[in-house]
Each structure stands twice: as C-alpha cells, then as structure tokens.
C-alpha cells in the first residue's frame, strides 16, 4: 500500500472470508482476474451491464401478469425530459402501492430496465406498480443530474397518481448500489422540499459516501467486485474535482447528511465482505440515533451485489426473503 494517508488509525485485518458458494460462483464468472473499474472501462461497463442486467419485454410481462409502457415526463427545471418505465399489474387493485426503482451501475451505467426482475419479484405479491427511472449518467452528466432526474420521476408519479392507479400514500423507493445511494438522496430531498411523501426506502448495499476511506473500504482493497478504485471512478465521474472534498452535498452523498430525522422506514442491507459495509451500517445507526425506523442486515461473507452475481446461492435466497419480508410488513402496517 502506498497511499495510506486516510487509513483509519487501526490495524486492518484481511477481508472477511467470502461465503463458500459465492466465492465459487465468483471464481467461475471472474476467472480469478482482478476487477477494477477505471475511467477508460466505463464504456465497456455500459455495454456489459446492459447485456447482463437489462430485462427484455417478456421479462417485464411476466407471462401476462404485468403490462408495461414508457412515459416521457418533465425533467428537472431547465433540463431534458425524463423517461420512466411503468409496469402495471394486469389485475391492478386501484389504488395500488408503488415501487419506485432507481437502477444501479456505479452512477455511470445502467438503464430503466436494469435489475427489473428482482423489482417485479418484490412487487408482484402486493399487486404493486413498478416505476423505473432512466436518469442521466455520469460523467457526461455530473451531479445533480441523477438525483434531480429521479426526483422529477417521483414528482410525476405523485402528480399522476389517479391516471396510474397509484396510491400516493404508499410509494416505496427502492435501489441497490448506486441506485441505493440515489434512493437515499431522493428520500432526503423529498423530506427537505416537502415533496411527495415516501412510505419506505429500501437501500440495497447502497453507495452513500464519496469519502471512500472507511475501514471496510481499506480492508477490501483489490478484493471483490467493487473496490476502492472502482468506487473512486464512480464518485469522480459524478462529482469531478469536488470528490472527497469538504463541499459535497448530502443529496450527492447521503452519508454527508447531518440530519437523518424525519425519514420514512428504511431497510438497509450489505455484505460483510464489501467496501460499503461501514457506510451502510453507519447510515442505519444514524437513523436510529435520530429516532427513526431502520432494519439492517449484514450478510456474512457477502461481496458487493452478490445476489445479482449468484441469485441461486443460499445467502442470496436469504437476502431476497429478507427484503420481501420487510416490504410485506411495511405494506401490512
């Protein structure tokens, strides 16, 4: 290690061991090669991300239980329109709860169709509508394009609830990885602007802190599928020169928020063997400290986004069940 200027003043142990199944699955996909996203690989990431995570028409229809349509909706003031994908249950029980989905991709990749299969899996038992927003990507569009596009999509849902058959009292925002960070940011924004009321926030292994220097971040250097350098690539694309500095907004990096009170119930999960472990745990802890409602799951031996890499693994099945259980309890309350 050469740059240890920001290492916490503790002895850093080796990474926690990966779960056996996840490690074996990762070895198959990764072939043992080190994995780091650098700025020159963003284009390739976009191509590969689309291939691996985009859901096709049949996947959205789910054998006829859902219909889908794209809507072009007003963007943030002075910015282009935003496209949202709306998936509606064929037998919708109006007004239906809404899952507002913000896709992953490190702030630099992904589309409104990314990661939609787990979203529809979550939504279907509740007859929920899923709306997924196509926000502008960094680095071509730096902060605040992403969070403002996401906020514009949320505002459109609230304003068109009747036409959508949506229950504005029960909009749950959901995102994983970069989408989890953006979901947390939109939740803060909605609180501070007194915008649409959110019923809950599901933050899967969220990307919350541009400072990128936590204990877990240092510990996991060069391991897993999203390491400190990959994270820097994502945050720098979003923030440019402001990355890691003193003047980063909480709407860019929610870990920077000084006030986490007055937020809707949060579900947060993270793997024990990933860089986001510390910031995810700290975010849940600070919600509790502020008197809020949060549920935190730390999956032992889980690397970043392990459920997307190997959804069949026992640990992935447990993660999926935990998210489903939280949503079931939330919507039953």
């Amino acid at each position, binding site marked *: 290690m050469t740059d240890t200027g920001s290492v916490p003043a503790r002895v850093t142990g080796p990474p926690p*061991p*990966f779960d*056996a*199944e996840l*490690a*074996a*699955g990762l*070895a*198959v*996909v*990764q*072939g*043992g*090669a080190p*994995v780091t*996203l650098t700025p020159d*690989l963003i284009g*390739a*990431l976009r*191509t*590969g*991300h689309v*291939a*691996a*995570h985009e859901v096709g028409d049949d996947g959205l229809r789910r054998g006829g239980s859902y219909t889908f349509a794209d809507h072009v909706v007003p963007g943030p003031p002075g910015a282009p329109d935003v496209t949202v994908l709306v998936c509606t249950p064929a037998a919708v029980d109006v007004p239906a709860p809404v899952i507002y989905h913000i896709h992953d991709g490190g702030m630099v990749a992904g589309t409104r169709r990314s990661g939609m299969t787990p979203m529809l899996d979550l939504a279907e038992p509740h007859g929920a509508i899923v709306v997924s927003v196509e926000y502008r990507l960094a680095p071509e569009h730096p902060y605040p394009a992403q969070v403002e596009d996401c906020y514009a999509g949320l505002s459109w849902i609230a304003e068109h609830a009747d036409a959508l058959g949506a229950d504005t009292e029960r909009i749950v925002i959901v995102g994983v990885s970069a989408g989890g960070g953006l979901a947390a940011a939109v939740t803060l924004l909605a609180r501070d602007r007194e915008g649409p009321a959110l019923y809950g926030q599901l933050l899967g292994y969220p990307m919350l802190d541009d400072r990128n220097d936590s204990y877990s971040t240092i510990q996991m250097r060069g391991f897993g*599928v999203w390491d400190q350098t990959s994270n820097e690539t994502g945050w720098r694309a979003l923030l440019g020169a402001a990355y890691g500095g003193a003047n980063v907004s909480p709407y860019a990096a929610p870990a920077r928020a000084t006030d986490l009170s007055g937020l809707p119930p949060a579900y947060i999960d993270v793997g024990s063997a990933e860089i986001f472990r510390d910031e995810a745990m700290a975010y849940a802890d600070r919600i509790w400290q502020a008197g809020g409602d949060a549920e935190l799951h730390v999956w032992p031996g889980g690397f970043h986004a392990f459920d*997307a*890499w*190997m*959804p*069949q*693994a*026992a640990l*992935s*099945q447990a993660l999926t069940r935990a998210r489903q259980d939280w949503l079931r309890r939330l919507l039953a309350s």
Partner: protein
Amino acid sequence: MRELVGRVEALDPDAGAALRVITFFDQLMERRAGLENVVRGAAVLSGHPAVLIDTDRSLRIRVTPDGARTEQALPAPQAEWCRLTVDSHITVYLEHPGPAGPVEAMVLERAAMAARTILDRTRSRARPHPHHDTELVEVLLDASAPTEDRHHAAKSLGLSRSAPARVIAGFDGSLQVTAAVTEVLPDDLRAGVGPAVPLLELPQTVAAARAAARFTADGTPTDPGPQVVRAEDLGGLIMLAAAVDAGLGAGPDIAAVERTAAAAPWMLATLDTLAGGISLRTAAAALCVHHSTLHERMAQAERLLGWSLREQPGRLRLTVALMLRRLHRNRAADSVPSGT
C-alpha cells in the same frame, strides 16, 4: 467485460466450461462447503435439477437450477438420467436424459468427488463402519492406552478433543461414545447413558453407563419402563444396582411385585404408570382405561402387594420395588455381552 457484470448461469459447452466447473468445485472444497452447496453447484452449472443420494446413509438432497432445495418427496431417479456413482454408494444425478454432454460429465465428476470428500470427512459421525468403530471405542475407553492413541481414536470417531463426551452402554453389552452435545441416540437402542466428561475421563464412566443400562426396560407390557436411562438422572438411585448385586434387602418387595404381576396381563404396565407419580386421572388416560377401572385395578394391586398406593410413601416403595425387580432381572446385562 464479463468480469464486471457477469452472473452465474448454466454454462455453455465451450472450451472454458470444463475449467470453470473445476474452479467452482475447487473453491467450494477449499472453503469446506457442505453437501447442499455441492448439489446446488451441480444444478446451477448444469442447468438441470441435481440429486445426491448416499445409500449407506439414506441421504438424499435435491436442488433445482434456481438454487432451491426441494424438501418434499423426491421423484424416483429415472433410468435415463445422467449419473455418476462413486464408492458404490454415492450417486449424483442430473435430471436430464443422457448421454451426458461435456459440461454435464464434468459437473457429475466434480460433484461426486466433492461429495465423497465431504462424506469421508464426516464419516465417523454417520457411523457406517461399526466394526471399525468398536476397536476405536475400545482404545478410547482403555485408561491404560497411550494418551495420543486415545486422542487419535477419538478424532477418528468424529469427537472433538476439547468437547465433553458420553459413554453409551447398550443393553446388549455394546459400548459407544458420542459427543455430549449430541442428544440424539440411535433408534430402538436400549441403553444406559453415562455422564458428560472430558474424553480422557470416559473410562471411569463406563461402570455408571452400564449400571444405567440395567435400569432400562423393553418398554413392552411384560417389561414396562424406559428404554434409555441417563446415569445423571438417576442420582443416588444408581447405588441400587450395587445393592442388588450384594443381595441386600431386595427379596420381599421383588417377590410382592412378581406375585402381583402374575395376577393380570395389564398389571405391570399399571404398576409402572402408577409409580411414575402422576395423578390417577392422567394415569388412566395413559393406560387408556376409565378412571373408575383404574381405581379397581389399584385396589387389586394394593391387596396383592400388601401396601397402599394412595399416599406418597407407598408409591415410592412401589417405584423402588419395580427398579429392584428390573435390576435383578437385568443382572446379566453388565457381565454377559451377548445379552438377551
């Protein structure tokens, strides 16, 4: 950019697939994964439901390609399914008509090998080799054997060096040793269970386990009572065994119980239930008779025994008398290994 975005899917039968199968199972074994992990890997990588069957252990595990373990009754293996058997009792099936393609063949081979390694690792716990185990138990329970040999025997039996263990003395004279945390005893085993002690102190507990075995019964109408007795539960009563062997004071009450038992086929079971100290209503329910019937039976028993069963002292006397009778009858148990 597969490495940045990939996910584990069923493998295409290309040149790299075999290598990835090997990598997968090597990683599982390196991290000491379990059997279910192996079967799940076979299902996910092949894209077909996978089944592991070990006929020696009556073990069946089935996992579908989405990773779900199927708990309900499993379909019988079809003759045409791809399969590989190792050691004549471990078989991995892919629920897919043969012949196996290159990926399937590699998955079967690696999964079967991995399963065998895991089963070997846990073999002594599953006890498929009773003859071998008998010798190991002899060494472990021989206080005069070298300590290292005894530790080695314990390890081969699947016992942890630092965890307490118990001697299980079968009524048939056999001896086994199990980890104290394992509260599961073999079915249909009539046995005394010794106290939990460190491994090297086990020899001193053999006598207690054998004595406890003498308090056991067949659990039949002619020999009612517990099939498994723990020395620790007997407390001071365990001394009754030595008292019977010394010929102390057993005579009249044993004779009274034998005389009473001979009066009716239901008598022993009735006495045993009454001796359990439960209420007459509960006892009647346990014996499946009306409580007025039980009152009549009890009156008859009291006449034959010669003492009352309505108060605690009379019940205690009956309890001890039944134990003495059992100990008397079971006297051969700790000296004649062939037993019954």
